[in-house]
């Protein structure tokens, strides 16, 4: 393990970004933290997390897939994929790091999504341990250790210092390149912080969420619950929950045409939208109740069914703070899971 003084973190960021483009959470004028490309003057945010998740780095909101040239009856397919360059994402929280594993299982399973894969291979992740989790955090429910996130390098930040620990070969290599800016150190301070944080985590209001009634094989027990209709009755179908969600991965493929050139792109889509499943001859999910059910059943039952019981939620809490009608996965877990005293 190595460390540097918090006063020298800008030197570290500068040194890293001179080698490889580096993105880190920076406070916007409105106070929200967003990932921005590092350049001198950018200050590493102290916010608990970024407003949007880190999934954009590997699965951007919109990306071009392929181009076509059409002329008369002829069509030409133009592969526009380019070689990606290495980049660093600095300060990714444990929840978002876990979301990469959940997305990997979708995009890297056969047939591999090469757009996602090439970004993933070029991304170097500096994760950041949590020390002051929020009331809306519930990552521990999904067995995520917020005090020791994965990634190529794990960071711990205290009032005075930043600690670095490499977890992968990639991580070791990049840390060795900034050796002169850090010093070797013991793990005592980090362990102390971890113990303190673990105590806070165990006392968080959502830390005792019970997932027993969800997971593999629970479709039949939950699908016909009358609660889906009741709980979705105020849902606006705005899709905000899906856009801020680090694990939501549904996408649409669309095109635009300029002259004889057609660009086919993919963009995030939402199962909360009425036209998501609409076909020429009808729609299997006609009402918001069915779309609402799809979103939560996917995260809590269908995804686990296909992925060894892994839930497709990391407890980041973004949907809790963003939903305009204050509906969220926690309420669903409590009520549909049958654990809330009404």
């Amino acid at each position, binding site marked *: 393990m190595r460390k540097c003084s918090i006063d020298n973190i800008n030197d570290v960021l500068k040194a890293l970004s001179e080698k490889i483009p580096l993105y880190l959470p920076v406070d916007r004028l409105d106070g929200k933290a967003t990932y921005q490309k590092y350049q001198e003057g950018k200050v590493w945010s102290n916010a608990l997390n970024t407003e949007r998740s880190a999934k954009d780095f590997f699965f951007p909101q919109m990306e071009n*897939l*392929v181009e*076509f040239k*059409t002329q008369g*009856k*002829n*069509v*030409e*397919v133009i*592969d526009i*994929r380019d*070689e990606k360059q290495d980049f660093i994402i600095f300060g990714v929280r444990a929840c978002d790091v876990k979301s990469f594993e959940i997305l990997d299982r*979708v*995009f890297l*399973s056969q*047939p*591999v*999504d*090469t*757009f996602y*894969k*090439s970004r993933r291979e070029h991304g170097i992740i500096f994760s950041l341990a949590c020390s002051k989790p929020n009331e809306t955090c519930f990552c521990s429910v999904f067995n995520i250790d917020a005090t020791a996130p994965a990634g190529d390098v794990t960071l711990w930040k205290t009032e005075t210092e930043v600690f670095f620990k490499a977890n992968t070969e990639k991580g070791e290599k990049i840390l060795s390149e900034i050796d002169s800016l850090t010093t070797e150190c013991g793990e005592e301070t980090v362990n102390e912080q971890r113990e303190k944080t673990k105590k806070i985590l165990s006392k968080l209001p959502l830390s005792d969420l019970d997932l027993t009634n969800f997971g593999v094989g629970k*479709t*039949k027990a939950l*699908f016909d619950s009358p609660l889906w209709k009741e709980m979705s009755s105020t849902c606006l179908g705005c899709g905000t929950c899906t856009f801020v969600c680090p694990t939501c*991965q*549904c*996408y*649409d*493929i669309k*095109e635009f*045409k300029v002259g004889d050139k*057609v660009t*086919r792109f*993919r963009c995030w*889509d939402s*199962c909360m939208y009425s036209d*998501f*499943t*609409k*076909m*020429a*001859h009808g729609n*299997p*999910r006609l009402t918001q109740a*069915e779309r609402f059910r*799809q979103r939560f*059943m*996917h995260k809590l*039952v*269908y995804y686990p*069914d*296909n992925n060894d019981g892994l839930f497709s939620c990391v407890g980041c809490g973004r949907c809790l703070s963003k939903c305009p009608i204050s509906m969220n996965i926690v309420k669903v877990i409590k009520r549909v899971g049958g654990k809330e005293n009404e």
Partner: protein
Amino acid sequence: MSNNEVLIPTVGVITDVRRDTPDIKTFRVVTPNGVKPFEHKPGQCAMLSIPGVGEAMFSITSSPTNTEYMEFSIKKCGCVTEWLHSAEVGQQITIRGPYGKPFPVDDEFVGKDLLFVAGGVGLAPLRSVINYCRHYRERYGSIDIVYGSRSKDDLLDYKEIIDEWSNEEGVNVHLTIDNPQEGWDGHVGFVPNYVKELNFSTNKTAVLCGPPIMIKFTLEGLCSLGFDKTQIYTTLELRMKCGVGKCGRCNVGSKYVCKDGPVFRFDELDELPSEY
């Protein structure tokens, strides 16, 4: 880039357009080099697109045993299909695939008496299986085909049915139309009722494809004759974008129609929510 990317299609050329019914045309597709775009199994699908209009999933109606080209029977009912219906011979489109799990023609179907029940454009995916089973005739028992549509003019592949299927030993074709029509001396009535009237022996393996209402009542009819749901297959259709189980919209419960289907056995469907 050396990696193959499934979302990037290749070019296909329409080399023949056959009008089957007032709203169904069958398109023959090859590559610009004049060969079949790719190999497939009966029941699998392909993504066809017209850049600038859109992309959609279609069942491959030609049999894998056809080594020269692929055929798609397409009903005019939306943006992409409407455009395709206006396309002429020589038009280039894009194609990618094959997608989905095929009918178990090389295992569960082997040695079985087969019963195919289709309604309207529902014959399109079954034609691939029927012609595959005809090609490897010795692998299967008897073949019964019940096919119905609104009228005589709405029967797909009528020429092939009459000239080839009906004349083949061990293949029994039972055609029906919904209402009496001049020039039609065959059976009149809905497919589910006809299937019950034909009173098939219950040792058959059945495959159903057609409008949801036809499937529902034919399934009930077969079960009342004594068929078990493990003997009956169908093929589902939901909206798709990627075709490979990633875009997230064609799921029925934990199963993706594009990847785990489109072919399902009815006992498998019983395990899934009825959201299709």
